[in-house]
């Protein structure tokens, strides 16, 4: 069976190509407007045209100077060690005649000691040891929860935040 050699006969609307150029130019102009305007903000004319060149040039001219740390490292460690020894020595001499008592320790130091050593005191036991009446609780009691922090907390701890129906808009 012979295949028919069909010719397709497409027809163009009259004057199609005459208006094509102006349609394209209209679109280019609209795109240009969208490029330069975004609601109430504007971009200077020609800014986007020269931007990539500006960035590439900056990349070419900027050189990151890397200091040769290797050679300084030995000296740095030596100086740091000597300084540490000196500070320790001076500190020991300074406090030679001062005997520490419990009143010299900050409450935070005492709390930190219990934490580090893994002493498993309950909050009630700690309250008996630490002078609670001297602690400033105003900051804790008066603190108001920030909405963003609440949302972040819920986000981290709830599987499906949407079940809370917090939002109405999509």
């Amino acid at each position, binding site marked *: 069976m012979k295949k028919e050699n069909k010719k397709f006969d497409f027809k163009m609307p009259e004057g199609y190509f005459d208006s094509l150029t102006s349609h394209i130019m209209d679109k280019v102009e609209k795109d240009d407007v969208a490029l330069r305007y975004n609601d109430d903000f504007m971009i*200077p004319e020609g*800014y986007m045209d020269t931007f990539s060149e500006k960035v590439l040039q900056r990349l070419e001219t900027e050189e990151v100077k890397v200091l040769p740390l290797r050679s300084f490292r030995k000296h740095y460690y030596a100086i740091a060690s000597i300084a540490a020894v000196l500070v320790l020595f001076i500190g020991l001499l300074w406090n030679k005649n001062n005997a520490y008592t419990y009143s010299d320790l900050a409450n935070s130091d005492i709390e930190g000691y219990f934490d580090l050593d893994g002493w498993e005191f309950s909050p009630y036991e700690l309250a008996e040891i630490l002078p609670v009446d001297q602690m400033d609780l105003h900051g804790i009691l008066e603190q108001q929860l920030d*909405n*963003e922090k609440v949302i972040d907390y819920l986000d981290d701890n709830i599987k499906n935040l949407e079940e809370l129906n*917090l939002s109405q808009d*999509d």
Partner: protein
Amino acid sequence: MVEEETLVLQLKQKEAKAFEMLVNAYKVRLYWHIRRIVLDHDDTDDVLQNTFIKVFRNIDGFKGESKLYSWMYRIATNEALGFLKSRSQLQNLDTEELMATKIANLRADVYYDGDEIQLKLQEAIALLPEKQKLVFNMKYFQEMKYEEISTILDTSVGGLKASYHLATKKIEAYLKKN
């Protein structure tokens, strides 16, 4: 447009043409994203340049776990927020005071064409907490989908919806009051 994987490979080989293609593909979107955060054109220009420089220098660290544009958006966001923080420190202001100054300057800005209502809207947005401001700008002005925003801000869609809801309520209240 070259496939993303191929482009990333070319970028990692520091090919200038690939980088130029990347800049041209994303400069407009990133510009408006940054502009909505820092408000004026000159600051946006600085941050946008720094963003692309950072992208170029850190492209080896891009593992392809997210889309390239999400990664770039994240860099742009951090650069813009970092810019505001350092500017406020330099001027010895907190971020709120800095944003109030920037809003006040908008009125006389040659590249700002908003009316009084639009200016009030910018004021209301500038007063939002950081995350709410970002979510609002990306959802309302840039019309991004929550899923896209989620990959950029690394927050769940539910969390974003909640943030957007709170942001719109605050803006509404501010506009009614002022």
